[in-house]
């Protein structure tokens, strides 16, 4: 199994290099989609508690597999696998596809590896690898739009990395150890918590730190969007799980901050998403909104540590559910454009869309109920606030998904082949997910509770469509425009 860990870490990196060398390029491009396979095997087959110490590497590295890591590694590997398969077809005619593959594989190496990292330095290394390699995915098209998105992405990434470096040093100093397993026992300083919340928060896309996301996710080629939005956001979530003292000391201020940020993200994501014309931008905003649910879970865990044993599996399930559903939706955008049988694909797209809305019998409902059960233990004012707001959030998500299907139906056609099979596989996995484990998400009352927001959303959508009303247009990146104008103004002021 130790060898498998090393193969899982090294294979994507090795292929990322081989794909750049012309003689080995055809072979490496052929193998590229399979690069996440060892990681997937590891997630499925290895025992918990697996640990591999490499005392000569970096600052003395450790790689490990625990319950949380296995879950994240599993869905991360799955989404990378199917997106890679999809990318083969999607990029078949792209003359610069070897460049894409190289960045894609390097990003995968970071994203898969960080699920296995057992010490702060290795985690930071793999997180940075993922973040910086993904820049190549964002700007792959080379358009002016992509370059602007890339610039914003890079600025935010560098800010995030700096915050994380300092936050990690503070935690490591407090714990007198750089092993992740020693962090749960210490209570880091307020500065450390803040820096970690913000540093990983940039990746998660919490409000005010989210503006890079609706710019960067849509401009990347479709398979890259799928991994960016489907799994790389969860790397930030995993960072929180790894570095924050969850289940240890209570941190009421940080908890309140995250709970508020989560709620805000849920509603702002929906509101801004509804104002979009471009399906991929809408999906990016939907990701901001959905990550808000997981942020709620982490915030609740910081505030009430005794709830963490219930919240952790709920957050994990939510991450798994969103990873599969969101990547299926992103991949579907390309499938619809390339397909002759649009209605069939639209029907397929309705499945993950329903799951995100939390419809009965979907993974979304299981995840939402698990999360709700965890959040139920929160004190006032959250005890009153959340039960009132969460159904509204479900309504909002359902509206957003209806809007998505509406926009998808009107997309102009675009070439591409070999996209359908990986997309269907992901959709099917998402559908099967709730049947793989016993769940409390069954019964008429539960379904009725979950069903009404969706029905209501359907009615509202029908009405709006009938009246021909249009949502106001909002440029992707929303507050960024204000920020950029402000900076330009400052710049002019300084030049005077």
């Amino acid at each position, binding site marked *: 199994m130790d060898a498998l860990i090393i193969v899982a870490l090294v294979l994507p990196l090795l292929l990322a290099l081989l794909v750049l060398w012309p003689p080995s390029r055809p072979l490496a491009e052929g193998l590229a989609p399979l690069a996440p396979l060892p990681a997937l095997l590891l997630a499925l087959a290895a025992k918990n508690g697996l640990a591999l110490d490499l005392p000569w590497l970096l600052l*003395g590295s450790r790689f490990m597999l625990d319950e949380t890591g296995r879950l994240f590694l599993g869905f991360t590997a799955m989404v990378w696998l199917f997106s890679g398969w999809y990318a083969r077809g999607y990029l078949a005619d792209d003359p610069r596809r070897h460049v894409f593959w190289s960045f894609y594989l390097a990003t995968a190496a970071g994203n898969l590896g960080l699920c296995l990292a057992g010490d702060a330095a290795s985690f*930071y290394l793999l997180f940075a690898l993922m973040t910086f390699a993904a820049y190549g995915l964002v700007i792959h098209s*080379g358009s002016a739009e992509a370059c602007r998105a890339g610039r914003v992405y890079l600025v935010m990434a*560098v800010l995030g990395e700096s915050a994380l470096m*300092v936050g990690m*040093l503070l935690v490591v100093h407090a714990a007198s150890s750089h092993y992740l397993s020693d962090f749960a026992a210490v209570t880091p300083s307020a*500065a450390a918590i803040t820096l970690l919340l913000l540093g990983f928060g940039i990746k998660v896309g919490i409000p005010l730190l989210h503006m890079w996301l609706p710019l960067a996710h849509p401009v990347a080629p479709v398979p890259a969007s799928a991994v960016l939005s489907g799994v790389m956001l969860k790397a930030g979530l995993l960072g929180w799980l790894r570095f924050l003292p969850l289940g240890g000391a209570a941190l009421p201020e940080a908890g309140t901050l995250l709970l508020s940020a989560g709620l805000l993200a849920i509603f702002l994501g929906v509101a801004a998403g509804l104002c979009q014309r471009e399906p991929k931008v809408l999906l990016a905003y939907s990701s901001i909104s959905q990550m808000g649910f997981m942020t709620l879970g982490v915030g609740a865990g910081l505030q009430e540590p005794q709830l963490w044993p219930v919240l952790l599996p709920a957050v994990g399930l939510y991450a798994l559910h969103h990873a599969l559903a969101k990547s299926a939706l992103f991949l579907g955008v390309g499938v619809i454009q390339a397909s002759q049988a649009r209605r069939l694909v639209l029907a397929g797209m309705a499945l993950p869309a329903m799951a995100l809305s939390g419809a009965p019998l979907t993974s979304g409902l299981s995840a939402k109920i698990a999360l709700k059960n965890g959040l139920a233990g929160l004190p006032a004012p959250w005890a009153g606030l959340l039960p009132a707001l969460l159904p509204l959030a479900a309504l909002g998500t359902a509206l957003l998904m209806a809007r998505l299907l509406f926009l998808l139906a009107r997309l102009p056609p675009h070439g591409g082949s070999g996209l359908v099979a990986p997309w269907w596989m992901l959709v099917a996995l998402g559908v099967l997910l709730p049947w793989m484990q016993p769940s409390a998400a069954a019964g008429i009352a539960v379904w009725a509770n979950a069903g009404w927001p969706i029905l209501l959303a359907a009615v509202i959508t029908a009405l709006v469509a009938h009246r021909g009303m249009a949502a106001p247009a909002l440029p992707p990146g929303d507050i960024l425009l204000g920020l950029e104008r402000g900076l330009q103004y400052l710049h002019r002021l300084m030049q005077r």
Partner: protein
Amino acid sequence: MTLNEFLPLAVLASSLLPGLIIFALPENRVGVRTTLNLLAALAKLALVGILLFGVQAGEEFGFAYAVLPGLDLTFKADALGLLFITLSAVLWLFTTFYAIGYLEKAPHRSRFFGFFSLCVTATMGIAMAGNMFTFFVFYELLTLVTFPLVVHRGTAQAMRGGMIYLAYTLVGGALLLGGIVWLHSLLGHTGFTHGGVLATLDSSTHWQLQAIFLLLISGVGVKAALVPLHGWLPQAMVAPAPVSALLHAVAVVKAGAFGIVRIVYGIYGIEFAQSLDLLTPLAVAAAITIVWGSFRALFQDDLKKRLAYSTISQVSYITLGISLFGPIGTIGGLVHLVHQGVMKITLFFCAGNYAETLGMHKVSEMAGVGKRMPWTTVAFSLAAFGMIGIPPLAGFISKWYLGLGALEARMPWVLAVLAASSLLNAAYFLPILYRAWFMPQAAAWPEEHILMQGNRETARLLLWPPLATAALTLALGLFAASSLSPLEWVKLIADREYLTWTP
């Protein structure tokens, strides 16, 4: 004379003698000169290898010669000195290769390589100096033998840069001498000892010791380019690329930083320096230098000038680490002595390659160069990422230890300085990388001297040295925890410097 006395002298002689012979060689004896240069560099490396094994095993290498009664030239190859010696010997080898390629068919090569060897001799002397007097002798020798290298091209701009360099360093030397004389009058000797030699002095002399510290640090601070004593460094970048590489990575700037190390650890002793309240002002000076250097680098369009300001900032990481009281800070500072050298020499090699191959001197001319010179640009990128502090490169390891050291020394504000420096480093390096890799070539190259030959982007001897040092940048970070890394060696030094320290 025993072997243990002979070896330090042999290390000096292995560059002094070839240097003197090269001066005497006629200009056209290229083969002899090249062979001599390379044999000398390899011989030195072998000698250093023996010393490393010896010191690790607890052997002591030293040699003393009384110039006057009470005034000795002493050489001692201890663990700290060997750190600097090894760095210099390794990078000298790479730079020799590079300089041979760089100066192919250029005039005055005998003069160049002669002074080049003397420059390394002076560096070795500084590293092995056993007291302040010996240190001073070689420190001034370094000034004198680097001057002809800085002005090697002989242009008006080069002469001007050289004069500024000379003015700064001679004034610095005078300050240093003043401090040494004062110290000698108090102490009767100026020998370096683990844990310092001043703690036993009467407490009534403490104000004098503080004043001496200021004099000594100002003296070596000129070469270490501490703000506001840094003005010469951006001017001295008129030197040929191999000289800049050596100046910024091993010889001059590093000699200044190493002087600070010796003064704090060998003369004052880290614990005594802390009790005299000398470390916090030093840390503040280093912090100002770090931020100011990075800030000024942002606005330089000339690539070498940008790198020069970057050096000002990065070398002060070493000073910062020394001024953080506690072994972890010491480790961070000392390991950066090596890491900064390897990364910066890579960057200057690459800058030289761009200039020699395509006539490219400015950042604004670099659009699309990644396609024309991919290997050089790969090396440049690795070193630049290392400077920013991105893992798994060498700079990350330095930053990690400096950060932890700051927390150990209860100076959390240093973390803000490190973060700000990382951001500024990113702000002046990433746009270069973006231009080089992602922007299409905008205009014809300014002056293409070396054409593509098959797949080879430039001359072999220009290409291999930066690739080797870039690989070293990666290895120093990736394998930092292995037993052969400089990090492990530095931990050994830190163990010996802290006599009574408990966490």
